């Protein structure tokens, strides 16, 4: 039998190599990954905001709870939360793309563009964090479907506005792509 003092160092070694693996992965991804703005815009456009609103609607959920058996309700709720999670995930991806554009713009030599870039990236960071928060909330619903859902109305409106914003991307995307290529680490 292996004693505790013998196990401990090997646990440290395993943790260290796990961390090293993540570091190497992030380093390689950061070199290879380029933000595909067109793809992000397309993903955003494909989000059906009304469908999402329905998925996170608390009255809809109450209706389902009253009219379905507990087992069926849990099953349906999991499916609905999973679909909503995919929406939130896509929105987060688009926020990351916006953050990259904002950061690239804020290094521009024109002070006006730089100032706008600062604000754009600030807002994109907030949106990203909100999308992460919403995703965690939806993940909780998937795992614990019997819990009363938290309403996520701001996110619904965020989606609508974001999709409108990103519709402008077509006119802008070629220039932005060039900018991102010149700025990605």
């Amino acid at each position, binding site marked *: 039998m292996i004693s505790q*003092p*013998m196990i*401990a*160092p090997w646990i*440290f*070694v395993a*943790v*260290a*190599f796990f*961390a*090293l693996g*993540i*570091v190497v992965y*992030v380093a390689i*991804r*950061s070199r290879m990954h380029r*933000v595909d703005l067109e793809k992000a815009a397309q993903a955003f456009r494909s989000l059906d905001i009304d469908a999402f609103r329905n998925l996170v609607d608390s009255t809809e959920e109450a209706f389902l709870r009253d009219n379905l058996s507990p087992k069926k309700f849990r099953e349906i709720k999991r499916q609905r939360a999973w679909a909503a999670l995919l929406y939130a995930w896509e929105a987060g991806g688009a926020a*990351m793309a*916006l*953050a990259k*554009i*904002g*950061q*690239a*713009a*804020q*290094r*521009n030599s*024109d002070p006006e*563009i730089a100032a*706008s*870039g*600062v*604000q*754009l*990236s*600030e*807002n*994109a*960071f*907030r*949106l*990203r*964090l909100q999308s*992460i928060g919403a995703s965690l909330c939806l993940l909780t619903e998937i795992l614990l479907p019997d819990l009363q859902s938290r309403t996520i109305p*701001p996110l619904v409106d*965020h989606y609508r*506005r*974001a999709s*409108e*914003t990103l519709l*402008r991307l077509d*006119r*802008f995307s070629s*220039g932005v792509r*060039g*900018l991102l290529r*010149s700025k*990605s*680490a």
Partner: protein
Amino acid sequence: MNWHKALLLFLWITPHVLLGVVAAVLYKRRLDREFPCFLAYVLCEIAGFIVLFTLYSIPGAGKQYAYAYSARLLLSIVLRFGVIDEVAKDLFCESQFLKVAAGRSLQCVTGLLLVMGVLLAVYAPGGNSARFTAGIFVVNRGAAMVQCGLLLALLLFSRFLGLSWRRPVFGIALGLAVLTSLDLATFALRAAFISEVARELLNLLITGTYLICVLIWIGYLLAPEFEPASLTVVPGDEVETWNKELKQFLRQ
């Protein structure tokens, strides 16, 4: 001189010579003003090497060597925390929101890692904790765990939030992350195993890792920074429009 000793000397001397190149590049590219702790760390490593190599060459100076080694190691630990702080400040400097939000998150991560490091030092002190040097190894193991965790948190934050790194900063963080993660593994083993063969193998691993890290630093410090975007690339009004849209968006 056998091949093992020759290899060990090569792996010991080369990184410290190359650290001189790192210091020169930092000075030439005026990065020393942005990263004073990193420059201090590099200079401390070089000075420490000179002292240790001198003591290593003097027969019968084993005890002095052990003390000098421990002092250099403890100083390195402190300076590495400074370097991580510099990296974090540079990464979040462009966003007031992130300075606050990420700063708080990092404080939580640091607190958690420190508690874990202390608990592990108490409950897993290593196989030969009575010895002074083994105690130092356990301290370094704990510090490496905290530092590696912090750098990992920074890398993951930047990835999740879409933060762009400047090349030199990314290089410094990457080199240090590789160094601390392997320090965690090697010092955990050194604190537990004292056989001569294990010690020699671990010495080779530590010095070899150090050489790789110094090469990472040189590579990223010498690599040219990306060209700034031209004025025509981003129309200001478009960015402003996006900004307004997003601002409304977040006021809900």
